[in-house]
Protein backbone atom coordinates (compact mmCIF):
# COMPACT_ATOMS: atom_id res chain seq x y z
CA UNK A 1 0.00 0.00 0.00
CA UNK A 2 2.89 2.31 0.80
CA UNK A 3 4.25 1.77 -2.70
CA UNK A 4 0.85 2.39 -4.29
CA UNK A 5 0.54 5.67 -2.43
CA UNK A 6 4.06 6.72 -3.44
CA UNK A 7 3.12 6.11 -7.08
CA UNK A 8 -0.21 7.91 -6.65
CA UNK A 9 1.58 10.96 -5.23
CA UNK A 10 3.97 11.05 -8.17
CA UNK A 11 1.17 10.75 -10.70
CA UNK A 12 -0.85 13.51 -9.04
CA UNK A 13 2.21 15.77 -9.16
CA UNK A 14 2.64 14.98 -12.83
CA UNK A 15 -1.02 15.81 -13.51
CA UNK A 16 -0.65 19.21 -11.94
CA UNK A 17 2.82 19.88 -13.35
CA UNK A 18 1.48 19.63 -16.86
CA UNK A 19 -1.44 21.45 -18.45
CA UNK A 20 -3.49 18.22 -18.73
CA UNK A 21 -5.12 18.53 -15.32
CA UNK A 22 -6.16 22.13 -15.85
CA UNK A 23 -7.46 21.51 -19.35
CA UNK A 24 -9.44 18.39 -18.49
CA UNK A 25 -10.97 19.83 -15.32
CA UNK A 26 -11.56 23.23 -16.94
CA UNK A 27 -13.32 21.83 -20.00
CA UNK A 28 -15.35 19.45 -17.83
CA UNK A 29 -16.58 22.29 -15.63
CA UNK A 30 -17.29 24.50 -18.62
CA UNK A 31 -19.33 21.90 -20.49
CA UNK A 32 -21.10 20.55 -17.42
CA UNK A 33 -21.86 24.04 -16.14
CA UNK A 34 -23.17 25.28 -19.42
CA UNK A 35 -25.31 22.22 -20.17
CA UNK A 36 -26.72 22.29 -16.66
CA UNK A 37 -27.44 25.96 -16.12
CA UNK A 38 -28.83 26.51 -19.60
CA UNK A 39 -31.77 24.25 -18.66
CA UNK A 40 -32.01 24.77 -14.89
CA UNK A 41 -34.25 27.80 -15.03
CA UNK A 42 -36.40 26.37 -17.82
CA UNK A 43 -37.10 23.26 -15.76
CA UNK A 44 -38.03 25.42 -12.81
CA UNK A 45 -37.09 22.81 -10.26
CA UNK A 46 -34.49 23.19 -7.54
CA UNK A 47 -32.68 19.90 -8.12
CA UNK A 48 -29.43 18.67 -9.58
CA UNK A 49 -31.16 16.17 -11.86
CA UNK A 50 -30.01 17.95 -14.97
CA UNK A 51 -26.38 17.92 -13.87
CA UNK A 52 -26.46 14.26 -12.88
CA UNK A 53 -28.20 13.49 -16.17
CA UNK A 54 -25.35 14.81 -18.30
CA UNK A 55 -22.40 13.96 -16.06
CA UNK A 56 -22.26 10.26 -17.12
CA UNK A 57 -21.90 11.19 -20.79
CA UNK A 58 -19.16 13.64 -19.93
CA UNK A 59 -17.37 11.00 -17.89
CA UNK A 60 -17.39 8.68 -20.90
CA UNK A 61 -15.09 11.23 -22.56
CA UNK A 62 -13.16 12.68 -19.64
CA UNK A 63 -12.23 9.48 -17.78
CA UNK A 64 -10.32 8.06 -20.77
CA UNK A 65 -8.65 11.46 -21.21
CA UNK A 66 -7.33 11.21 -17.66
CA UNK A 67 -6.09 7.64 -17.94
CA UNK A 68 -4.77 7.47 -21.52
CA UNK A 69 -1.30 8.68 -20.55
CA UNK A 70 -0.80 6.73 -17.34
CA UNK A 71 0.78 3.53 -18.66
CA UNK A 72 1.05 4.07 -22.43
CA UNK A 73 3.53 6.90 -21.94
CA UNK A 74 5.70 4.97 -19.49
CA UNK A 75 5.87 2.21 -22.04
CA UNK A 76 6.79 4.56 -24.84
CA UNK A 77 9.52 6.43 -22.98
CA UNK A 78 10.87 3.25 -21.34
CA UNK A 79 10.32 4.42 -17.76
CA UNK A 80 8.12 1.37 -17.25
CA UNK A 81 11.35 -0.66 -17.08
CA UNK A 82 12.67 1.66 -14.39
CA UNK A 83 9.43 1.44 -12.43
CA UNK A 84 8.95 -2.32 -12.73
CA UNK A 85 12.53 -3.06 -11.66
CA UNK A 86 11.95 -1.25 -8.39
CA UNK A 87 10.63 -3.48 -5.60
CA UNK A 88 6.97 -3.06 -6.58
CA UNK A 89 4.20 -5.48 -7.44
CA UNK A 90 2.22 -4.86 -10.61
CA UNK A 91 -0.96 -4.35 -8.62
CA UNK A 92 0.74 -1.63 -6.53
CA UNK A 93 1.58 0.25 -9.71
CA UNK A 94 -1.96 -0.13 -11.07
CA UNK A 95 -3.66 0.86 -7.83
CA UNK A 96 -1.35 3.87 -7.42
CA UNK A 97 -2.12 5.17 -10.87
CA UNK A 98 -5.81 4.48 -10.42
CA UNK A 99 -5.92 6.40 -7.14
CA UNK A 100 -4.21 9.39 -8.75
CA UNK A 101 -6.80 9.48 -11.54
CA UNK A 102 -9.64 9.09 -9.04
CA UNK A 103 -8.11 11.95 -7.07
CA UNK A 104 -8.26 14.10 -10.18
CA UNK A 105 -11.96 13.26 -10.64
CA UNK A 106 -12.58 14.16 -7.01
CA UNK A 107 -10.85 17.50 -7.52
CA UNK A 108 -13.02 18.14 -10.59
CA UNK A 109 -16.19 17.26 -8.70
CA UNK A 110 -15.12 19.48 -5.81
CA UNK A 111 -15.43 22.44 -8.14
CA UNK A 112 -19.04 21.51 -8.93
CA UNK A 113 -20.05 21.75 -5.25
CA UNK A 114 -21.16 25.38 -5.76
CA UNK A 115 -23.98 23.98 -7.94
CA UNK A 116 -25.88 22.22 -5.13
CA UNK A 117 -24.95 25.00 -2.69
CA UNK A 118 -26.48 27.71 -4.88
CA UNK A 119 -29.41 25.63 -6.06
CA UNK A 120 -30.31 24.75 -2.47
CA UNK A 121 -31.04 28.42 -1.86
CA UNK A 122 -33.51 28.52 -4.75
CA UNK A 123 -36.15 26.32 -3.08
CA UNK A 124 -39.67 27.69 -2.78
CA UNK A 125 -40.66 29.14 0.58
CA UNK A 126 -41.74 26.59 3.12
CA UNK A 127 -40.04 23.67 1.36
CA UNK A 128 -36.58 22.36 2.08
CA UNK A 129 -33.93 21.23 -0.39
CA UNK A 130 -33.65 17.47 -0.76
CA UNK A 131 -29.97 16.61 -0.11
CA UNK A 132 -30.45 12.85 -0.49
CA UNK A 133 -30.24 12.71 -4.28
CA UNK A 134 -27.29 15.11 -4.23
CA UNK A 135 -25.23 12.96 -1.86
CA UNK A 136 -26.29 9.85 -3.77
CA UNK A 137 -25.49 11.53 -7.07
CA UNK A 138 -21.96 12.45 -6.04
CA UNK A 139 -21.33 9.01 -4.60
CA UNK A 140 -22.69 7.50 -7.83
CA UNK A 141 -20.45 9.74 -9.94
CA UNK A 142 -17.38 8.67 -7.98
CA UNK A 143 -18.32 5.00 -8.31
CA UNK A 144 -19.01 5.36 -12.02
CA UNK A 145 -15.80 7.31 -12.50
CA UNK A 146 -13.78 4.56 -10.81
CA UNK A 147 -15.18 1.91 -13.15
CA UNK A 148 -14.47 4.10 -16.19
CA UNK A 149 -10.97 4.88 -14.92
CA UNK A 150 -10.22 1.20 -14.38
CA UNK A 151 -11.33 0.49 -17.95
CA UNK A 152 -9.26 3.41 -19.22
CA UNK A 153 -6.21 2.23 -17.32
CA UNK A 154 -6.49 -1.20 -18.88
CA UNK A 155 -6.65 0.34 -22.35
CA UNK A 156 -3.61 2.46 -21.49
CA UNK A 157 -1.73 -0.69 -20.49
CA UNK A 158 -2.48 -2.38 -23.78
CA UNK A 159 -1.10 0.27 -26.11
CA UNK A 160 2.00 2.43 -26.18
CA UNK A 161 0.07 5.07 -28.08
CA UNK A 162 -1.98 7.42 -25.91
CA UNK A 163 -4.46 8.24 -28.65
CA UNK A 164 -5.17 4.57 -29.31
CA UNK A 165 -5.61 4.05 -25.57
CA UNK A 166 -8.01 7.00 -25.44
CA UNK A 167 -10.16 5.81 -28.33
CA UNK A 168 -10.29 2.22 -27.07
CA UNK A 169 -11.32 3.38 -23.60
CA UNK A 170 -13.86 5.78 -25.06
CA UNK A 171 -15.49 2.97 -27.05
CA UNK A 172 -15.60 0.54 -24.11
CA UNK A 173 -16.93 3.18 -21.70
CA UNK A 174 -19.48 4.30 -24.24
CA UNK A 175 -20.60 0.70 -24.72
CA UNK A 176 -21.15 0.35 -20.98
CA UNK A 177 -23.13 3.60 -21.03
CA UNK A 178 -25.17 2.85 -24.11
CA UNK A 179 -25.88 -0.85 -23.67
CA UNK A 180 -29.36 -0.44 -22.11
CA UNK A 181 -30.64 2.33 -24.35
CA UNK A 182 -32.46 -0.15 -26.60
CA UNK A 183 -33.53 -2.39 -23.72
CA UNK A 184 -37.23 -1.51 -24.04
CA UNK A 185 -37.53 -2.89 -27.57
CA UNK A 186 -35.83 -6.16 -26.67
CA UNK A 187 -37.31 -9.27 -25.00
CA UNK A 188 -37.60 -8.82 -21.27
CA UNK A 189 -34.84 -11.18 -20.07
CA UNK A 190 -32.32 -9.80 -22.52
CA UNK A 191 -33.41 -6.28 -21.66
CA UNK A 192 -32.83 -6.92 -17.96
CA UNK A 193 -29.41 -8.34 -18.61
CA UNK A 194 -28.45 -5.30 -20.66
CA UNK A 195 -29.81 -3.02 -17.96
CA UNK A 196 -27.69 -4.80 -15.40
CA UNK A 197 -24.61 -4.23 -17.53
CA UNK A 198 -25.39 -0.55 -18.03
CA UNK A 199 -23.33 1.89 -16.06
CA UNK A 200 -26.03 4.51 -16.53
CA UNK A 201 -28.88 2.34 -15.22
CA UNK A 202 -27.14 1.78 -11.88
CA UNK A 203 -26.24 5.43 -11.70
CA UNK A 204 -29.87 6.47 -12.10
CA UNK A 205 -30.75 4.26 -9.16
CA UNK A 206 -28.13 5.82 -6.91
CA UNK A 207 -28.83 9.35 -8.11
CA UNK A 208 -32.42 8.94 -6.91
CA UNK A 209 -30.91 8.86 -3.46
CA UNK A 210 -31.36 5.13 -2.98
CA UNK A 211 -28.04 3.48 -2.29
CA UNK A 212 -28.58 -0.16 -3.14
CA UNK A 213 -25.77 -2.67 -2.54
CA UNK A 214 -26.46 -4.22 -5.96
CA UNK A 215 -25.52 -0.97 -7.70
CA UNK A 216 -22.46 -0.43 -5.51
CA UNK A 217 -21.33 -4.01 -6.03
CA UNK A 218 -21.72 -3.60 -9.80
CA UNK A 219 -19.39 -0.59 -9.89
CA UNK A 220 -16.90 -2.07 -7.49
CA UNK A 221 -16.70 -5.33 -9.40
CA UNK A 222 -16.29 -3.52 -12.73
CA UNK A 223 -13.49 -1.46 -11.15
CA UNK A 224 -11.80 -4.52 -9.67
CA UNK A 225 -12.04 -6.34 -12.99
CA UNK A 226 -10.43 -3.41 -14.80
CA UNK A 227 -7.61 -3.16 -12.28
CA UNK A 228 -6.88 -6.89 -12.34
CA UNK A 229 -6.83 -6.90 -16.16
CA UNK A 230 -4.47 -3.92 -16.12
CA UNK A 231 -2.17 -5.67 -13.71
CA UNK A 232 -2.16 -8.72 -15.98
CA UNK A 233 -1.27 -6.59 -18.98
CA UNK A 234 1.65 -5.19 -17.01
CA UNK A 235 2.84 -8.70 -16.18
CA UNK A 236 2.58 -9.53 -19.87
CA UNK A 237 4.62 -6.42 -20.67
CA UNK A 238 7.55 -8.11 -18.94
CA UNK A 239 7.48 -10.62 -21.80
Amino acid at each position, binding site marked *: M*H*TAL*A*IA*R*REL*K*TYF*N*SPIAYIVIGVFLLVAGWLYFSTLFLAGRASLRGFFGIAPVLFVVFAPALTMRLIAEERK*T*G*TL*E*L*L*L*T*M*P*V*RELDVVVGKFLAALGMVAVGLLWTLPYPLTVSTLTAEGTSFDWGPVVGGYLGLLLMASSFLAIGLWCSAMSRNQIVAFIMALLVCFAFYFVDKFAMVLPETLGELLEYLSVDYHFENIARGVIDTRDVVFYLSLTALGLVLTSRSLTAA*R*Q
Partner: protein
Amino acid sequence: MNIVPAFFEVEGCEMSVSTSQPMIRIENLTKAYGATQALRGVSFEVPRGQVVGFLGPNGAGKSTTMKILAGYVTPTSGTARVDGIDVSEDPVATRRRIGYLPENNPLYEDMMVREFLDFAADVRNVPAGERPAKIKSAVERCGLGPVLGKDIGQLSKGYRQRVGLAQAILHNPDLLILDEPTSGLDPNQIVEIRSLIKELGREKTVIMSTHILSEVQSTCSRVLIISGGKLVADDSPEHLTESEGGVVTVVLAPKNGTPLEAGRVRSLLESLPGVSAVSAIAPDGEGTLGFSLRHGKLDPRRAVFEAAVQNGMILLEMRRQQVSLEETFRKLTAA
Protein backbone atom coordinates in the same frame (compact mmCIF):
# COMPACT_ATOMS: atom_id res chain seq x y z
CA MET B 1 13.43 -22.11 27.78
CA ASN B 2 14.05 -24.44 24.95
CA ILE B 3 12.35 -22.45 22.24
CA VAL B 4 14.45 -19.33 22.40
CA PRO B 5 17.89 -20.82 21.67
CA ALA B 6 16.42 -22.99 18.91
CA PHE B 7 14.94 -19.91 17.32
CA PHE B 8 18.28 -18.12 17.44
CA GLU B 9 20.03 -21.09 15.95
CA VAL B 10 17.73 -21.05 12.97
CA GLU B 11 18.23 -17.34 12.54
CA GLY B 12 22.02 -17.63 12.71
CA CYS B 13 22.04 -20.55 10.32
CA GLU B 14 20.01 -18.66 7.75
CA MET B 15 22.26 -15.67 7.95
CA SER B 16 25.41 -17.67 7.38
CA VAL B 17 23.79 -19.31 4.34
CA SER B 18 22.82 -16.01 2.80
CA THR B 19 26.26 -14.45 3.20
CA SER B 20 28.07 -17.42 1.68
CA GLN B 21 25.88 -17.31 -1.42
CA PRO B 22 27.42 -15.85 -4.55
CA MET B 23 25.85 -12.50 -5.41
CA ILE B 24 24.72 -13.77 -8.80
CA ARG B 25 24.16 -17.36 -9.84
CA ILE B 26 22.79 -17.92 -13.30
CA GLU B 27 22.11 -21.46 -14.46
CA ASN B 28 21.26 -22.51 -17.98
CA LEU B 29 19.35 -19.38 -18.72
CA THR B 30 17.43 -19.26 -22.01
CA LYS B 31 15.13 -16.63 -23.38
CA ALA B 32 13.12 -16.62 -26.56
CA TYR B 33 11.29 -13.57 -27.87
CA GLY B 34 8.83 -15.23 -30.20
CA ALA B 35 10.95 -16.94 -32.83
CA THR B 36 14.20 -15.20 -31.87
CA GLN B 37 16.38 -17.02 -29.40
CA ALA B 38 18.10 -14.30 -27.38
CA LEU B 39 19.80 -16.55 -24.82
CA ARG B 40 20.80 -20.17 -25.39
CA GLY B 41 21.81 -21.55 -22.04
CA VAL B 42 24.01 -19.07 -20.19
CA SER B 43 25.51 -20.04 -16.82
CA PHE B 44 27.87 -18.11 -14.58
CA GLU B 45 28.43 -17.06 -11.01
CA VAL B 46 29.64 -13.79 -9.61
CA PRO B 47 31.01 -13.72 -6.04
CA ARG B 48 30.47 -10.76 -3.77
CA GLY B 49 32.52 -7.65 -4.40
CA GLN B 50 33.58 -8.42 -7.95
CA VAL B 51 33.35 -5.90 -10.79
CA VAL B 52 32.37 -7.79 -13.90
CA GLY B 53 32.42 -6.45 -17.43
CA PHE B 54 29.85 -7.86 -19.77
CA LEU B 55 30.91 -7.73 -23.41
CA GLY B 56 29.33 -8.81 -26.64
CA PRO B 57 28.18 -7.50 -29.97
CA ASN B 58 24.78 -5.85 -30.26
CA GLY B 59 21.99 -8.38 -29.94
CA ALA B 60 24.21 -10.98 -28.28
CA GLY B 61 22.01 -11.16 -25.18
CA LYS B 62 23.77 -8.81 -22.76
CA SER B 63 20.77 -6.61 -22.09
CA THR B 64 18.43 -9.60 -21.91
CA THR B 65 20.60 -11.22 -19.23
CA MET B 66 20.70 -7.97 -17.27
CA LYS B 67 16.95 -7.44 -17.64
CA ILE B 68 16.32 -10.93 -16.31
CA LEU B 69 18.61 -10.28 -13.33
CA ALA B 70 16.90 -6.96 -12.66
CA GLY B 71 13.53 -8.72 -12.70
CA TYR B 72 12.07 -6.97 -15.73
CA VAL B 73 12.08 -9.85 -18.20
CA THR B 74 11.11 -13.38 -17.22
CA PRO B 75 13.38 -16.15 -18.54
CA THR B 76 12.00 -18.90 -20.77
CA SER B 77 13.92 -21.52 -18.81
CA GLY B 78 16.77 -21.73 -16.34
CA THR B 79 17.22 -19.82 -13.11
CA ALA B 80 18.77 -16.54 -12.10
CA ARG B 81 19.51 -16.04 -8.43
CA VAL B 82 20.50 -12.87 -6.68
CA ASP B 83 21.94 -13.41 -3.22
CA GLY B 84 20.53 -16.94 -3.31
CA ILE B 85 16.98 -15.85 -4.14
CA ASP B 86 15.39 -16.86 -7.44
CA VAL B 87 14.29 -13.74 -9.34
CA SER B 88 11.22 -15.53 -10.67
CA GLU B 89 10.14 -16.73 -7.25
CA ASP B 90 10.47 -13.59 -5.16
CA PRO B 91 11.09 -10.71 -7.56
CA VAL B 92 10.31 -8.01 -5.01
CA ALA B 93 12.95 -9.35 -2.61
CA THR B 94 15.65 -9.59 -5.27
CA ARG B 95 14.85 -6.15 -6.69
CA ARG B 96 15.31 -4.72 -3.22
CA ARG B 97 18.97 -5.82 -3.31
CA ILE B 98 19.60 -4.43 -6.76
CA GLY B 99 20.36 -1.01 -8.17
CA TYR B 100 19.64 -1.01 -11.89
CA LEU B 101 20.57 1.44 -14.60
CA PRO B 102 18.63 0.36 -17.71
CA GLU B 103 19.94 0.75 -21.23
CA ASN B 104 19.27 4.27 -22.58
CA ASN B 105 18.62 5.37 -18.99
CA PRO B 106 14.87 6.14 -19.09
CA LEU B 107 13.88 8.82 -16.56
CA TYR B 108 10.78 10.83 -15.75
CA GLU B 109 11.58 13.92 -17.80
CA ASP B 110 8.93 16.10 -16.21
CA MET B 111 10.25 15.69 -12.67
CA MET B 112 12.91 17.72 -10.93
CA VAL B 113 16.04 15.79 -9.94
CA ARG B 114 15.20 16.27 -6.27
CA GLU B 115 11.61 15.13 -6.74
CA PHE B 116 12.70 12.10 -8.71
CA LEU B 117 15.23 10.93 -6.13
CA ASP B 118 12.63 11.47 -3.43
CA PHE B 119 10.18 9.36 -5.40
CA ALA B 120 12.75 6.59 -5.92
CA ALA B 121 13.48 6.54 -2.19
CA ASP B 122 9.76 6.51 -1.45
CA VAL B 123 8.99 3.57 -3.78
CA ARG B 124 12.02 1.72 -2.45
CA ASN B 125 10.56 2.16 1.01
CA VAL B 126 13.59 3.93 2.46
CA PRO B 127 12.37 4.96 5.95
CA ALA B 128 11.46 8.64 6.04
CA GLY B 129 14.05 9.29 8.77
CA GLU B 130 16.97 7.98 6.70
CA ARG B 131 15.80 9.47 3.43
CA PRO B 132 17.44 12.91 3.52
CA ALA B 133 20.83 11.42 4.50
CA LYS B 134 20.69 8.72 1.82
CA ILE B 135 19.61 11.12 -0.90
CA LYS B 136 22.33 13.53 0.16
CA SER B 137 25.02 10.88 -0.02
CA ALA B 138 23.88 9.70 -3.47
CA VAL B 139 23.76 13.32 -4.68
CA GLU B 140 27.27 13.96 -3.41
CA ARG B 141 28.74 10.82 -4.88
CA CYS B 142 27.24 11.52 -8.28
CA GLY B 143 27.93 15.25 -8.16
CA LEU B 144 24.30 16.25 -8.67
CA GLY B 145 24.34 19.22 -6.31
CA PRO B 146 24.15 21.94 -8.97
CA VAL B 147 21.16 20.45 -10.82
CA LEU B 148 18.89 19.34 -7.96
CA GLY B 149 16.25 21.90 -8.81
CA LYS B 150 16.28 21.33 -12.55
CA ASP B 151 13.83 19.31 -14.61
CA ILE B 152 15.42 16.04 -15.72
CA GLY B 153 14.31 16.79 -19.28
CA GLN B 154 16.64 19.81 -19.38
CA LEU B 155 19.77 18.01 -18.23
CA SER B 156 22.77 17.22 -20.39
CA LYS B 157 23.47 13.59 -21.15
CA GLY B 158 26.24 13.38 -18.56
CA TYR B 159 24.01 14.69 -15.78
CA ARG B 160 21.17 12.43 -16.88
CA GLN B 161 23.49 9.45 -16.56
CA ARG B 162 24.47 10.57 -13.10
CA VAL B 163 20.80 10.86 -12.12
CA GLY B 164 20.34 7.27 -13.31
CA LEU B 165 23.33 6.17 -11.23
CA ALA B 166 22.18 8.13 -8.18
CA GLN B 167 18.81 6.43 -8.43
CA ALA B 168 20.55 3.06 -8.60
CA ILE B 169 22.79 3.55 -5.54
CA LEU B 170 20.31 5.52 -3.42
CA HIS B 171 19.14 2.57 -1.31
CA ASN B 172 22.67 1.21 -0.87
CA PRO B 173 22.11 -2.05 -2.79
CA ASP B 174 24.56 -4.96 -2.72
CA LEU B 175 24.42 -5.46 -6.47
CA LEU B 176 24.62 -2.84 -9.20
CA ILE B 177 23.51 -3.76 -12.71
CA LEU B 178 24.62 -1.09 -15.16
CA ASP B 179 23.61 -1.49 -18.79
CA GLU B 180 25.98 0.60 -20.90
CA PRO B 181 26.59 3.27 -18.27
CA THR B 182 28.97 5.29 -20.43
CA SER B 183 27.25 5.16 -23.81
CA GLY B 184 26.77 8.51 -25.49
CA LEU B 185 29.00 10.43 -23.09
CA ASP B 186 31.94 12.62 -24.04
CA PRO B 187 35.47 11.47 -23.05
CA ASN B 188 35.58 13.63 -19.92
CA GLN B 189 32.24 12.35 -18.72
CA ILE B 190 33.29 8.79 -19.47
CA VAL B 191 36.33 9.17 -17.23
CA GLU B 192 34.19 10.62 -14.45
CA ILE B 193 31.53 7.91 -14.61
CA ARG B 194 34.19 5.23 -14.84
CA SER B 195 35.98 6.42 -11.71
CA LEU B 196 32.63 6.56 -9.95
CA ILE B 197 31.93 2.95 -10.92
CA LYS B 198 35.41 1.94 -9.80
CA GLU B 199 34.81 3.57 -6.46
CA LEU B 200 31.41 1.87 -6.08
CA GLY B 201 33.06 -1.45 -6.98
CA ARG B 202 35.14 -1.28 -3.81
CA GLU B 203 32.12 -2.12 -1.67
CA LYS B 204 29.56 -3.54 -4.07
CA THR B 205 29.21 -6.22 -6.67
CA VAL B 206 28.95 -4.57 -10.06
CA ILE B 207 27.99 -6.06 -13.39
CA MET B 208 28.26 -3.62 -16.28
CA SER B 209 27.91 -3.99 -20.02
CA THR B 210 29.85 -1.84 -22.42
CA HIS B 211 31.10 -1.51 -25.97
CA ILE B 212 34.31 0.19 -24.96
CA LEU B 213 36.86 -2.56 -24.43
CA SER B 214 39.46 -0.37 -22.77
CA GLU B 215 36.80 0.42 -20.19
CA VAL B 216 36.74 -3.22 -19.18
CA GLN B 217 40.51 -3.31 -18.87
CA SER B 218 40.54 -0.25 -16.65
CA THR B 219 37.49 -0.99 -14.49
CA CYS B 220 36.74 -4.69 -14.30
CA SER B 221 38.50 -7.61 -12.67
CA ARG B 222 36.64 -10.12 -14.79
CA VAL B 223 35.25 -10.22 -18.30
CA LEU B 224 32.31 -12.19 -19.59
CA ILE B 225 31.97 -12.27 -23.35
CA ILE B 226 28.64 -13.33 -24.75
CA SER B 227 27.92 -14.00 -28.40
CA GLY B 228 24.84 -15.40 -30.10
CA GLY B 229 23.17 -15.98 -26.74
CA LYS B 230 26.06 -18.05 -25.37
CA LEU B 231 28.93 -17.35 -23.05
CA VAL B 232 32.16 -17.61 -25.09
CA ALA B 233 34.72 -16.33 -22.60
CA ASP B 234 34.98 -15.85 -18.86
CA ASP B 235 38.34 -14.66 -17.57
CA SER B 236 40.30 -11.71 -16.25
CA PRO B 237 41.11 -9.08 -18.90
CA GLU B 238 44.86 -9.85 -18.56
CA HIS B 239 44.42 -13.59 -19.05
CA LEU B 240 42.14 -13.14 -21.98
CA THR B 241 44.68 -11.17 -23.93
CA GLU B 242 47.60 -13.33 -22.73
CA SER B 243 46.19 -16.62 -23.87
CA GLU B 244 45.67 -15.21 -27.31
CA GLY B 245 49.42 -14.59 -27.64
CA GLY B 246 50.85 -11.70 -29.57
CA VAL B 247 53.41 -10.53 -32.11
CA VAL B 248 57.19 -10.23 -31.69
CA THR B 249 59.07 -7.90 -33.98
CA VAL B 250 62.79 -8.65 -34.47
CA VAL B 251 65.49 -6.84 -36.41
CA LEU B 252 68.68 -8.84 -37.10
CA ALA B 253 72.10 -7.73 -38.42
CA PRO B 254 75.15 -9.82 -39.53
CA LYS B 255 77.95 -10.10 -36.98
CA ASN B 256 81.04 -10.18 -39.19
CA GLY B 257 80.17 -8.61 -42.52
CA THR B 258 78.82 -11.75 -44.23
CA PRO B 259 75.36 -10.80 -45.46
CA LEU B 260 72.41 -12.68 -44.08
CA GLU B 261 70.39 -15.01 -46.25
CA ALA B 262 66.79 -13.99 -45.78
CA GLY B 263 65.38 -17.42 -46.64
CA ARG B 264 67.62 -19.28 -44.23
CA VAL B 265 66.94 -16.88 -41.34
CA ARG B 266 63.26 -17.08 -41.98
CA SER B 267 63.14 -20.88 -41.84
CA LEU B 268 65.29 -20.75 -38.69
CA LEU B 269 62.77 -18.43 -37.01
CA GLU B 270 59.88 -20.55 -38.19
CA SER B 271 61.39 -23.60 -36.51
CA LEU B 272 61.53 -21.92 -33.09
CA PRO B 273 59.09 -23.23 -30.44
CA GLY B 274 56.01 -21.07 -29.99
CA VAL B 275 56.24 -19.26 -33.31
CA SER B 276 53.20 -19.86 -35.46
CA ALA B 277 53.85 -17.57 -38.44
CA VAL B 278 56.66 -15.41 -39.74
CA SER B 279 56.40 -12.51 -42.14
CA ALA B 280 59.13 -10.20 -43.37
CA ILE B 281 58.96 -6.50 -42.63
CA ALA B 282 60.96 -3.68 -44.14
CA PRO B 283 64.59 -3.74 -42.82
CA ASP B 284 65.62 -0.58 -41.01
CA GLY B 285 69.15 -0.29 -42.39
CA GLU B 286 71.82 -1.62 -44.76
CA GLY B 287 72.22 -5.40 -44.45
CA THR B 288 69.60 -5.88 -41.72
CA LEU B 289 66.55 -8.08 -41.84
CA GLY B 290 63.20 -7.49 -40.14
CA PHE B 291 60.60 -10.11 -39.25
CA SER B 292 57.34 -10.17 -37.44
CA LEU B 293 56.63 -13.39 -35.57
CA ARG B 294 53.14 -14.33 -34.53
CA HIS B 295 53.05 -16.55 -31.49
CA GLY B 296 50.55 -18.32 -29.29
CA LYS B 297 50.55 -18.79 -25.55
CA LEU B 298 54.31 -19.55 -25.44
CA ASP B 299 56.55 -16.47 -25.50
CA PRO B 300 59.36 -17.13 -28.08
CA ARG B 301 61.66 -14.24 -27.15
CA ARG B 302 64.25 -16.31 -25.27
CA ALA B 303 64.42 -18.79 -28.12
CA VAL B 304 64.88 -15.98 -30.64
CA PHE B 305 67.78 -14.53 -28.64
CA GLU B 306 69.54 -17.86 -28.29
CA ALA B 307 69.07 -18.72 -31.95
CA ALA B 308 70.58 -15.35 -32.95
CA VAL B 309 73.63 -15.93 -30.74
CA GLN B 310 74.20 -19.48 -31.95
CA ASN B 311 73.92 -18.51 -35.61
CA GLY B 312 76.20 -15.49 -35.43
CA MET B 313 73.65 -12.77 -35.75
CA ILE B 314 73.23 -9.56 -33.81
CA LEU B 315 69.82 -8.85 -32.38
CA LEU B 316 69.33 -5.15 -33.04
CA GLU B 317 65.82 -4.97 -31.82
CA MET B 318 63.10 -7.12 -30.34
CA ARG B 319 59.75 -6.09 -28.93
CA ARG B 320 56.57 -7.91 -28.14
CA GLN B 321 53.07 -6.65 -28.56
CA GLN B 322 50.19 -8.43 -26.93
CA VAL B 323 47.05 -9.04 -28.89
CA SER B 324 44.58 -6.34 -27.88
CA LEU B 325 41.27 -7.10 -26.24
CA GLU B 326 39.64 -5.82 -29.41
CA GLU B 327 41.25 -8.60 -31.42
CA THR B 328 40.31 -11.21 -28.85
CA PHE B 329 36.80 -9.89 -28.86
CA ARG B 330 36.53 -10.02 -32.63
CA LYS B 331 37.93 -13.51 -32.75
CA LEU B 332 35.57 -14.82 -30.09
CA THR B 333 32.44 -13.21 -31.39
CA ALA B 334 32.93 -13.72 -35.11
CA ALA B 335 29.85 -15.53 -36.33
